[in-house]
């Protein structure tokens, strides 16, 4: 159980900004900057962050779709960065992805049976493709009779099931889910989350689950990492994370989410962050969060905090993490 399936070491993904007649590189968008994370076999790592924090770039880097500027990605202990195309082809069997938008991630002219069969055909794994597809459809809760129907005949939730069936077709070890439920209605969202949980148990899957919704993450993840401007601000086991988040940004995020409970909403102390996310092309000096941090001190402007261990498995990148006693005072 405790074996690391995926290990990301000091990963950086920078995109050049080119300007002028000669397309001279003037600056870089530092989408992911010096980021380290590990995912153990069978667990779910939830990655949370606002738009522009680099979470999708990270997902693409794990799949080998973005070339990292520096750092390393290890899958089952092996670095995937210097894989040749043949090895990469094999790797893609083991790492699959579920996309956010169930409307654009399925070919509108392809019957859903064909969509699910595509990975099977690409890897020539099974002799009886149609039978396997029907098995998969049943596994994700779609009627096998729908084999010849086109994506537009399905609702968002059902399309997401097609996307999931396609992702598990090759029995991958790791599935990267990039905001898989954020385009769905609340009542359908629960169906898809339950399906992902069931499949994880049944097929012994590992998930990297990217979302901006901390309540969904709380439900599905074993471990949570919060990203801000390409960096990890805080990472911890789920319970430790939700009971005693230590980073000021995490606390602001948690308090920003409206609770479906009017009494609690009235009593809650709210930390409203000022301003917008700075541009990742021009991140602030020192701690990247200091421009919006309610607890910022002069040192935050100058020095970059490192991820420090607070408790077992709980790391925070902040010079002034929130203390336990303060935290309790905030809650009551």
């Amino acid at each position, binding site marked *: 159980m405790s074996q690391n399936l995926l290990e990301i070491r000091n990963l950086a993904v920078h995109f050049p900004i080119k300007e002028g007649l000669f397309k001279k590189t003037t600056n870089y968008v530092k989408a992911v900057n010096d980021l380290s994370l590990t995912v153990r076999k069978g667990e779910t790592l939830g990655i949370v962050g606002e738009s522009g924090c680099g979470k999708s770039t990270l997902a693409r880097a794990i799949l080998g779709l973005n070339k990292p500027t520096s750092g390393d990605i290890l899958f089952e202990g092996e670095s995937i960065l210097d894989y040749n195309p043949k090895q990469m082809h094999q790797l893609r069997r083991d790492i699959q992805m579920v996309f956010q938008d169930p409307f654009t991630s399925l070919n509108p002219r392809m019957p859903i049976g064909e969509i699910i069969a595509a990975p099977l055909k690409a890897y020539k794994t099974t002799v009886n493709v149609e039978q396997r597809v029907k098995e998969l459809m049943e596994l994700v809760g779609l009627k096998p009779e729908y084999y010849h129907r086109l994506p537009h005949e399905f609702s968002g939730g059902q399309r997401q099931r097609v996307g999931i069936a396609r992702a598990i077709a090759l029995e991958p070890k790791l599935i990267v889910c990039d905001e898989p439920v954020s385009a769905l*209605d609340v*009542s359908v969202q629960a*169906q898809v989350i339950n399906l992902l949980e069931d499949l994880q148990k049944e097929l012994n899957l590992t998930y990297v689950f990217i979302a901006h919704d901390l309540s969904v993450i709380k439900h599905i993840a074993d471990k949570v990492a919060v990203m801000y401007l390409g960096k990890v601000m805080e990472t911890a086991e789920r319970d430790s994370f939700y009971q005693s988040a230590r980073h000021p940004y995490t606390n602001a995020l948690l308090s920003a989410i409206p609770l479906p409970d*009017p*009494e*609690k*909403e009235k009593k809650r102390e709210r930390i*409203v962050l000022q301003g917008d*996310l700075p541009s990742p092309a021009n991140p602030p000096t020192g701690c990247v969060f200091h421009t919006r941090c309610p607890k910022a001190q002069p040192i935050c402007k100058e020095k970059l905090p490192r991820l420090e261990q607070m408790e077992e498995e709980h790391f925070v990148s902040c010079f002034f993490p929130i203390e336990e006693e303060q935290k309790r005072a905030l809650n009551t």
Partner: protein
Amino acid sequence: MLEVKDLKAYLDTSTGVVKAVDQVSFTVKAGETVGIVGESGSGKSVLALSLMQLNPTPLTFYPQGEILFEGRNLLGLRERALRKMRGNEISMIFQDPMSSLNPIFKIGNQLIEAIRSHKKMPRHKAEAEAIELLQDVGIPDAERRMHEYPHEFSGGMRQRVMIAIALACRPKLLIADEPTTALDVTIQAQILEMLRTIQNKYGTAILIITHDLGVVARLADRVMVMYSGRIVEEGSTADIFYRTSMPYTWSLLRSIPRLDEAGQDRLIPIQGQPPNLVTPPKGCNFSPRCPFATPECAEIDPALTERRHGHRVACILSEMEFEEQKQLLEAVDRKEVLA
């Protein structure tokens, strides 16, 4: 102030007539915040657009009903009279702040245009008012930002500009259609906070339309829950969240992952898909997905009836029957979780 009576808004499509809004009645009093909650396709946006008479015609038609704003029926009003009313008395903000502003005009000019098209005043006066509006909605350095273009503003800032334009003529009612759905949570928190300050300052009534029950709990005084074109439950925020009496509202509240509750219980989704509005199910629209459904539900179409003061419910189950069934279902859930 606003009274909607038995409103029907139907859409004429190639597949048939869609009953997007069906027999909807409600009121909004001056200065209060009313939330409309529903999933996509529940008719909440069509309802909002109907209030402003902005639905495309003749595609949309209103076979029945009245929209009374301060006693005047907006249905059947001439376009000129409507234009006068829009922005002046009722204004609206939309979900997508990226596409609601004209990209080729400066923010300031767009604001000044909005002010001057409703009020006769010299340009420099309108300019001063525009700057004040931008400050009201929390845009720092407003004077300089008047001369910037929409692309220089972030999503949250653009939504603030939209709100400033909507408030330009001090409307009595502001309709906000999913105003924060496209924004990040920290920005959403800023906008919601700002809406509340604005309301306190100007006494504007707000009709907020959202799918997020949390937003409603934070902001609204009263809530209406919509399902397939109908209002299925209406009451004070406390009625809806603590004295839930309609199976759909109850199922919806139960199906969302909660940040404020411990444990990782299994989510309890609502089975099935929302109904097709061209051929809605017989009887109660929710009956095919309802865990409480009785054979009668497929026959009788329940009317929205008042249970307690101000708390209206569309369900044939009585309060006692609902409570009993609810406890039964909750007991079953707990066992499932244990097993």
